[in-house]
């Protein structure tokens, strides 16, 4: 049997199809993945993301430590509560994980890491934290619920004490704050507005049920994947991993080469790779009927080969979309091999969908 979150029984009770995900027994969908997807784009949906690792880092030199550990620069975080997306790299530039880091105070930062990489992340972080006197604590006591969609914040506010609602509503994008024992952040993985709420596991089932009462639709990992891909967001293990560096994974924007004197793990390797050029991660729109899937072969105008890293059917666009790693190419027209046949596809710039609207022409 796999690991279970504090919401496992709620999922089963609501008819979820349960699948293994990184060792966790998680809901794939509660009946219709596509309806769950539309609920998030049009109203509000919620995901149990308690399988992700919440890691608190404490110590007087924690900022200095993170400026060394992460490819993005926590020096950019000036206001408590502000969050930053970053990769954590091997010395050769390969991606150990992607994560969100929250600046809570000069003595305390919080990381949210992927479930499937949690144990190796903790080992890596722990190994490097010692020299900085930073303590590393996995918050097993917390559950996490992501509430996403145009009406997600309003519905979530109803769970808070009236005195707290104004402050929660005023949280700017990519900021988080503590509300008694809950930590609420205006972040997400869907391309919609919303909150991610970290709360004591003991509160999770009650909060989940209250959100349902507010009309928030439970949504599973299936919808989470189609939503994040429409939003042009990478999935660790598909779009980047230890064999692939950020610059060929559409994540150059998360690598802070400036200021030049900041030394971070992987920096020297990335500077060499940046000069070398190489492949890039692009968005694909399938021009024909069918579904793009990871590992399908992509053929560019120059007849060189690339590969789909994540592909799916986009419920919002009613077309198949993908992320693909391809050699730098001149034209937008490519072909993808699906079951032995070549199909026309077009390179487009992600995101495909944001805030309920298509951002690419079909």
């Amino acid at each position, binding site marked *: 049997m796999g690991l279970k979150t504090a919401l496992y029984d709620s999922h089963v009770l609501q008819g979820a*199809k349960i699948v293994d995900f990184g060792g966790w027994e998680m809901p*794939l*969908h509660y009946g*219709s*993945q*596509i309806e769950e997807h539309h609920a998030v784009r049009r109203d509000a949906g919620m995901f149990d993301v308690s399988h992700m690792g919440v890691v608190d880092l404490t110590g007087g030199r924690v900022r200095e430590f993170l400026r060394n550990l992460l490819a993005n620069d926590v020096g950019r975080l000036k206001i408590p509560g502000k969050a930053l997306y970053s990769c954590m790299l091997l010395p050769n530039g390969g991606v150990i994980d992607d994560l969100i880091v929250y600046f809570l105070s000069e003595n305390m930062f919080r990381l949210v890491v992927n479930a499937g990489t949690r144990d190796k992340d903790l080992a890596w972080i722990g190994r490097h934290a010692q020299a900085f006197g930073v303590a590393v604590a996995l918050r097993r006591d917390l559950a996490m619920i992501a509430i996403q969609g145009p009406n997600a914040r309003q519905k979530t506010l109803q769970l808070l004490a009236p005195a707290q609602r104004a402050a929660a509503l005023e949280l700017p994008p990519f900021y988080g704050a503590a509300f008694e024992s809950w930590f609420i952040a205006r972040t997400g993985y869907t391309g919609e507005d919303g909150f991610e709420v970290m709360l004591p596991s003991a509160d999770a089932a009650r909060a989940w049920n209250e959100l349902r009462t507010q009309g928030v639709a439970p949504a599973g990992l*299936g919808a989470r994947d*189609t939503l994040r891909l429409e939003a042009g967001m990478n999935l660790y293990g598909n779009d980047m991993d230890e064999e692939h560096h950020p610059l060929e994974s559409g994540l150059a924007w998360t690598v802070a080469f400036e200021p030049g004197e900041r030394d971070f793990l992987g920096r020297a390797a990335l500077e060499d790779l940046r000069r070398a050029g190489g492949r890039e991660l692009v968005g694909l729109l399938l021009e024909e*009927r*069918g*579904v793009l*899937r990871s590992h399908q072969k992509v053929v560019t105008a120059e007849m060189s080969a690339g590969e789909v890293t994540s592909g*799916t*059917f986009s*419920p919002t666009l009613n077309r*198949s979309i993908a992320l693909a790693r391809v050699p730098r190419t001149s034209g937008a027209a490519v072909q993808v091999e699906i*079951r032995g046949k070549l199909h026309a596809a077009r390179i487009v710039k992600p995101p495909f969908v944001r805030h309920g609207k298509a951002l690419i022409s079909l």
Partner: protein
Amino acid sequence: MSDIPNDLRYTKSHEWVRRANGDAPNGTVEIGISQHAQSALGDLVFVEVPEVGRTLSAGEACAVVESVKAASDVYSPVSGKVIAGNGELAAQPELVNQDPYGSGWLFRLQTAAPFDETSLMSAADYAQFLADETK
């Protein structure tokens, strides 16, 4: 429990076969996937049916059903020549989810000769097969 109509025959790969002309030894058959199969696949987003005129052998992969999550081959339960594909599914693949034994049919075959039914299961046998499979 999955819905398994009594008047159909079933395969281990979860296709169903309907004889259009009762118990005649040959004739026209209609083929689709079972309620169990569509439920396991989830929301279908793409269906490819065989071309009219194509000759199929029993067990041959001849159609594809794709859900958001995965693609799955459909195998012809019997040998014959394709006389129709369900054209509605190009625009409405969800018909297979909504009505797998009716408007969600995939294709029709003209069987050339009396076909071997030993590989096909009755509704009762298929129900038992599903029960054993999920044990």
